[in-house]
């Protein structure tokens, strides 16, 4: 009954073993290492590292950046998927490719472009300085870089989902006299809510964990413009390894929560993401 590519039980077990060993070495070991190193100085030191003033401000900043950039990406994702899934127009596939673009751009380049635009030597730098608007080395710069990196997450989840669902439901609702907004809220949104949640989840995980892009625009001021991943690097460079891994373990926990919620969505609601990023 179980005859297939691997015809003997032995071969099947061997393949399973190889696969699990591979995952163990490449995925589980790093995860375990984070927690092992974080707790290497004991629970007391672990707790102390997390409630330290600069660590807390890094957590706050990370939450703030995510709280601004994720909702903006949701609005964008909804608008983009509505326009793309519900209408036919020329250049649609070009538009989708452009939305995907940030996936293939190196995070460092995504930071660099905002420095070139808004840095003191950049195009808008002198004007911004004259008007006392800070973008680079302040929260707006971090938000912009994060938004660039996470730009396609929600849209990518929603576009295929809404395309699969077609337009019949919306057209029916409209012909029954519902307004456009009502149709969106009562018909479309319930249809896509789990897919939306799925996209938001991945978007949020990446927004909170981004390192390369924010590193270029941060300025690394302790307690001011250090997000959690940057704070990990700073602690790491201060020989404070246990503390670095303690903050890292918070981010790893966030990753585990994300994976758990994602799995629940998959089992319960049969949402299957397009390859997530």
């Amino acid at each position, binding site marked *: 009954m179980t005859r297939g590519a691997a015809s003997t039980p032995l071969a099947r077990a061997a393949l399973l073993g190889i696969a699990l060993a591979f995952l163990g070495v490449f995925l589980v070991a790093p995860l375990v290492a984070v927690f092992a190193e974080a707790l290497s100085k004991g629970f007391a030191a672990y707790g102390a590292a997390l409630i330290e003033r600069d660590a807390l401000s890094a957590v706050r900043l990370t939450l703030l950046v995510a709280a601004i950039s994720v909702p903006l990406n949701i609005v964008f994702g909804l608008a983009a998927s509505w326009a793309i899934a519900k209408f036919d127009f020329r250049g649609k596939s070009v538009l989708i490719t452009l939305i995907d673009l940030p996936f293939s751009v190196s995070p460092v380049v995504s930071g660099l472009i905002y420095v070139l635009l808004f840095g003191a030597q*950049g195009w808008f730098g002198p004007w911004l300085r004259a008007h006392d608007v800070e973008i680079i080395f*302040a929260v707006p710069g971090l938000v912009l870089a994060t938004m660039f990196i996470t730009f396609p997450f929600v849209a990518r989840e929603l576009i295929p989902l809404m395309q699969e669902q077609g337009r019949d439901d919306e057209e029916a609702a409209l012909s029954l006299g519902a307004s456009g907004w009502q149709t969106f809220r009562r018909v479309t949104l319930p249809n896509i809510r789990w897919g939306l949640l799925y996209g938001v989840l991945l978007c949020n995980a990446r927004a909170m964990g981004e390192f390369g892009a924010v590193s270029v625009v941060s300025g690394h001021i302790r307690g001011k413009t250090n997000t959690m991943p940057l704070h990990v690097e700073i602690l790491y460079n201060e020989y404070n390894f246990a503390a670095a891994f303690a903050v890292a373990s918070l981010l790893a926990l966030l990753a585990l929560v994300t994976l758990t919620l994602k799995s629940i969505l998959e089992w319960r609601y049969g949402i299957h993401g397009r390859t997530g990023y």
Partner: protein
Amino acid sequence: MIERGQRFLQVSQPRARGRRWFGAAIGALAVFALAGCGSKTSADKAANGGAIELLNVSYDPTRELYKDINAAFAAQWKAEHGQDVTINMSHGGSGKQSRAVIDGLEADVVTLALAYDVDAIAQNSNVLARDWEQRLPDASAPYTSTIVFLVRKGNPKHIRDWGDLVKPGVAVITPNPKTSGGARWNFLAAWAYGRKTGGSDAAAEKFVGDLFGHVPVLDSGARGATTTFVERGIGDVLLAWENEAFLAQKELGAGKFDIVVPSISILAEPSVALVDANATKHGTTAVAEAYLKFLYTPEAQELIAKNYYRPRNADVAAKYAGTFPKLDLVTIKDFGGWQQAQTTYFADGGVFDRIFSGIKR
């Protein structure tokens, strides 16, 4: 928007086209409104009430030093002026930090690893006066240091001097001279040895080339290099700031490392400067100037010595004479000053690039 949706159903085709453009315009406006909200968050950082904030943008190994200095200065300022002052710190490779200030990081003061990186700010932006070096005593370098070797306990590879670094099987750790101030001092110290023993710049280039052939990792800052050596166990010798070597020996692995003092090294003079335009903008010029002058007071010089930097103050220096070994020190003047040294050795197409294109495999 609700009405828009309803009415949309009733309009005829030509008008719908016009409405679509109208919708597009609304969409665009919404974007700008959102963008406006996004950029507002930064404007509220100006000093309010009695408290005042300074931003000190510094190089890598000064983290511990300025923790002590900042606490002492804040206490003194509070006692004299009744005002709370918070000093925010940013650390990183010296060149990288200098770049950040040029790009608009609003430092009130910079305390970098070498004069060139401060010069770079003065040359590439207009936030800092070009005569900054003359505005404070000792060419605006309130403490000095030098470059020494950190080796593993018991000195298993028998490192005594620079010449031992290029023996087979010896791995040397140094950060990247392109981005790290400390590494540029390392490079020049090695050059000084090569020039002294070989008698010419050509011999020096040969020696430094050999030396970099023994370097397995090139971190971007002094801290990264120390971490590589101490925590990751890579390499036999770390070329380090004297203060960094003491710190590593005392605090990271007591009894795990020895310091080796070479026959010749370089007098490293880390520079400090007020960033005029930023301080003026923040209204912090007075406190920023006081902060830099504080570095020259006996109290601060004591903290400087305790953090293993060589103090300028003669009394404090005498008191800590036992800590700092005496050795033959060249200075940056022997290289024609930082401007010339930078152009000759570290600029693109300079000696360092030439050496590396020779090493490449």
